[in-house]
């Protein structure tokens, strides 16, 4: 896996990486997938057991698909407001969306963070590295139906992407290398 580009979602505040295996940056990709009924149907059919978990009240696949899109819509509208406000004034609200990936694990720099969808409870996640206050680099996103990230392959992949992007951002400076060519 290789990062081929970084994109400014909200200038000076929110960036996203794009991997060589994907046609879109990770941030844009999340919202495309969460608005895609075909992808969502396949996903929930595969993870139906997790949906049957009491925490999610045994939602049907159809209910899960509709919930995902509704939550994604609210999430996107919130981020859109932030993106539009961010053009003219100092952005303060982005930090309120992100929180440390694990409770009690607060790091000064390059903290692994997550942002949750707007509904409570929400299974939508956007994962990012916090470079400093109000500066985040999105490295992935997922639908998280289980209590931890260690039990499902797609979530383990997100953990790898977080680690990969953090290493990438912390890479030693080399004037001869383009930023996006670092591995």
């Amino acid at each position, binding site marked *: 896996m290789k990062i081929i*580009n*970084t*994109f*400014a*979602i909200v*200038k*000076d505040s929110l*960036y*996203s990486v794009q991997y060589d295996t994907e046609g*879109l*940056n990770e*941030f*844009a990709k999340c*919202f*495309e997938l969460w*608005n*895609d*009924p*075909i992808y969502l*149907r396949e996903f929930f059919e595969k993870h139906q057991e997790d949906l049957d978990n009491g925490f999610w009240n045994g939602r049907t*696949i*159809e209910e899960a*698909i*509709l919930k995902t*899109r509704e939550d994604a*819509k609210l999430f*996107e*509208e919130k*981020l*859109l407001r932030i*993106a539009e406000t961010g053009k003219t004034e100092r952005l303060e609200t982005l930090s309120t969306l992100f929180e440390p990936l694990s409770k009690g694990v607060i790091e000064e*720099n390059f903290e692994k963070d997550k942002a949750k969808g707007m509904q409570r409870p929400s299974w939508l996640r956007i994962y990012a590295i916090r*470079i*400093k206050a109000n*500066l985040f*680099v999105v490295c992935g996103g997922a639908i998280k139906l289980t209590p931890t990230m260690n039990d499902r392959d797609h979530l383990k992949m997100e953990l790898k992407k977080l680690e990969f992007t953090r290493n990438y*951002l*912390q*890479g*030693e*400076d080399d004037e001869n290398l*383009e*930023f*996006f060519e670092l591995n």
Partner: protein
Amino acid sequence: MSINKIKNRLKETSKQDNTWIERAKYRKENNAWLDISFAIAVKIMSALKANKTVGVSPKTQKELAVAMDCSPQYVNKLLKGTENLQLETITKLENILNINLIQVPAFESTIQIERSNIYTKSNDIINAGDSYSSSYEELKLIGTYSDENEFDCILKVA
């Protein structure tokens, strides 16, 4: 590498994202019909899945395309929930899959019946003394009784 150096490098080398911002604005502006298109897509997929379970056609996108006399690409577009569907297409889907996709609400009407004027034959339809909300079709039915039997009622059309 210092934080400031990383920040500057991000700023200098990153491209401005246009994909998400444009798509997000489009989704927001077209929210009303996209909601319906998405719900229809979900329902079509459920119908295909149900057909597959009982072995009835159409059970795949390909079979649906044949039944609709359109391309599989168009069916895929329908199932992405981003197609601004024509009524003709919707009714065709309803017929082929034997499901309801959209419904126009019936005309709501209120009929008030005086206990003293209840026509005995209509007891199976109207509860004595109650205000009765009825669809247009039901009103037509009651209206028939009224015409034939001097049924006394006050009719309100909402």
